[in-house]
């Protein structure tokens, strides 16, 4: 690829300038940005719309409320968070309650690494949160308790301490790109990429992971292990896309990153939504985001089902390419846009039906004419063969060795007797040049002397040996 092509391609990548100017500014109104930045308010909004999210257990807004706080209402396991926290600071995860009370008769809980926390210690932590120790601007903050998410079985071997989460970028109601973020030893159990978490791109169509990055460098396995990061199937993929779209609807943000974790019991739950999603997701997916955003800009998508369909159709395909790399064969769908190259090099772009049930490839009369085989048709007409024949008629044609006369034409390489639901037909076979995707090859095709077919060409078994057919495509 020369530098000019590289430059043109690089314009499909979403940079900071374009993100802020062309997507955040026009699509994310400040009022709605404030809603997602306020974790408690946003959580309540999600619950109102029946979107699963870790349950809010309690909030503490002031020192008065802190002093009145009733510790008996805390469950055995929970998470304590600052409302305006960032980067995972100030979050305490409690895994269980210690059976023994403290000497002062207080309840006590166990957090990571088996460290014990008494009521007084939790009180002090809340006091720090209220002081604003962990808030973005160090201004007074609100503390809240929420349900603890339990690690899903299929992620057990992946995550170090924390919970992996799935970031889905939703633009104009359509999920455009996704990655899974996995906490590591280096990130201290947090999934944030800039803290050293792993980001793995996800194929939108299948929910299977593709490339992994850590600190923006490509990796194959989780550092220090043999665990492969590519090819992991994300469970609940359709539900995740559905929830991401519904969450984006609740945020009223046009361009948002929705973070979803998978709870062992509850399944996918929304952690938060982000009005300024990061750009590293492009590296994890090895795909430019701006191109995808431009593709769905202005589309009117009424139903969630349609939005999911669009996301899968438009932005899936990484996996197919991988299959192509392994098998050396291209993946095609049931209907493909192909190019036919005619006798005098005239090109015809047509929609082809891919039909593994048909033994042979056939093209219709008008297409044959367009490709320069008019003379073949003229030659056929001289034999006055009906387009639909009975078995007896076919047999008598064969007995008369009509095919020998037909094959006298230089373009005709044979005659085929085709049985269809209507009856039998006698068709001339010619060679045609076909281009499917990047493959150009020559194949035999018979000409149907009957028009009114939905697709001017049906690629049958004899032309499909070099392809893998995926009916979903």
């Amino acid at each position, binding site marked *: 690829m020369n530098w000019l092509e590289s430059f043109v391609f690089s314009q499909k990548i979403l*940079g900071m300038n374009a993100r802020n100017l062309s997507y955040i500014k026009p699509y994310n109104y400040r009022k709605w940005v404030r809603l997602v930045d306020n974790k408690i308010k946003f959580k309540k909004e999600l619950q109102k719309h029946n979107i699963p999210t870790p349950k809010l257990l309690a909030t503490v807004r002031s020192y008065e409320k802190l002093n009145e706080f009733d510790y008996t209402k805390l469950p055995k396991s929970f998470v304590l968070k600052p409302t305006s926290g960032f980067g995972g600071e100030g979050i305490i995860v409690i895994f269980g309650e210690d059976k023994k009370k403290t000497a002062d008769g207080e309840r006590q809980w166990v957090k990571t690494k088996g460290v014990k926390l008494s009521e007084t210690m939790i009180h002090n932590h809340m006091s720090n949160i209220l002081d*604003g120790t962990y808030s973005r601007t160090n201004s007074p903050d609100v503390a809240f308790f929420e349900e603890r998410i339990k690690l899903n079985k299929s992620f057990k071997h992946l995550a170090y301490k924390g919970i992996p989460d799935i970031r889905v970028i939703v633009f104009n109601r359509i999920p455009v790109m996704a990655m899974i973020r996995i906490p590591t030893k280096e990130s201290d159990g947090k999934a944030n990429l800039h803290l050293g978490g792993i980001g793995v791109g996800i194929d939108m169509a299948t929910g299977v992971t593709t490339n992994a990055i850590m600190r923006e460098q490509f990796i194959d396995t989780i550092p220090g292990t043999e665990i492969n990061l590519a090819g992991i199937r994300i469970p609940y993929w359709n539900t995740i896309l559905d929830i991401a779209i519904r969450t984006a609807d609740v945020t009223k943000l046009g361009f948002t990153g929705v973070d979803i974790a998978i709870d062992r019991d509850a399944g996918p739950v929304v952690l938060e939504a982000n009005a300024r999603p990061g750009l590293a997701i492009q590296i994890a997916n090895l795909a430019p985001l701006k191109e995808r955003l431009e593709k769905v800009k202005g589309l009117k998508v009424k139903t969630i089902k349609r939005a999911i369909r669009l996301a899968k159709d438009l932005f899936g395909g990484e996996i197919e390419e991988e299959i192509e790399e392994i098998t050396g064969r291209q993946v095609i769908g049931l209907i493909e846009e192909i190019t036919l190259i005619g006798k005098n090099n005239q090109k015809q772009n047509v929609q082809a039906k891919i039909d593994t049930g048909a033994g042979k490839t056939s093209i219709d009369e008008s297409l044959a004419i367009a490709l320069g085989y008019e003379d073949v048709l003229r030659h056929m007409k001289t034999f006055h063969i009906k387009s639909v024949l009975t078995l007896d008629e076919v047999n008598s044609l064969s007995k008369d060795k009509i095919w020998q006369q037909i094959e006298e034409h230089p373009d005709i390489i044979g005659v085929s007797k085709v049985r269809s639901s209507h009856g039998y037909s006698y068709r001339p076979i010619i060679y045609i040049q076909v281009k499917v995707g990047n493959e150009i090859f020559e194949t035999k095709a018979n000409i149907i002397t009957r028009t009114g077919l939905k697709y001017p060409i049906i690629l049958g078994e004899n032309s499909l040996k070099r392809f893998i057919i995926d009916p979903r495509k």
Partner: protein
Amino acid sequence: MDIFFSYLMNNGVPRETIDILLMFPIMAGFIVAARQIVGFKAFGIYTPLIITFALTEIGFKYGVSIFIVSLVVASIVRYLLRKIRILYLPKMALILSITALSMFLSLVWGIFSDSTVFVQASIYQILIIITLVEKFINAQMEKGYRTAVVLSIETLILASLGNLIMTTTQLRDLVFYNPWIILIVFAGIIFLGRYEGLRISEYIRFRKIISNQ
């Protein structure tokens, strides 16, 4: 404009003051270009600007020394304070104060190396450089040590290049005698404010996506 500037100077306003005010938009434009086109994040726009002016006043060599010394001292103090449970503002107060006190050592060093420029430099210029410490420590807490160091280095590079521009007398004279040039600078800043293209740093950051194509 000439008459206006002469009037100011006849009434005791130093040429330096007029120069700094006139150069301000140009330096601001320079930092905007460095951010939008090259991808220098630094610490916003105010910090690199004010440090540029401080560097110009104190002299490049000593300015950069103070810059580095204050960041090192602040990092050490923060490290020592990490075990003490203390709120944000009081902690910052301690870090800043100890960094300020460490300037006594720098002054002694200035005396030993016979730098009258540095020894007699206005203390305000030195204090301005120290205010960088708050941004630095803040970045350490929010984004981690690595990012804070990267941002500091970027700030230092911007301020050094800015210093180079500030000390170009031809440019100073050009703006002094043709102040309307500032209007062009404003147009440039507006243009940069609408620039949607990739930053140079992003071509590097996303090179794998491009080469994978």
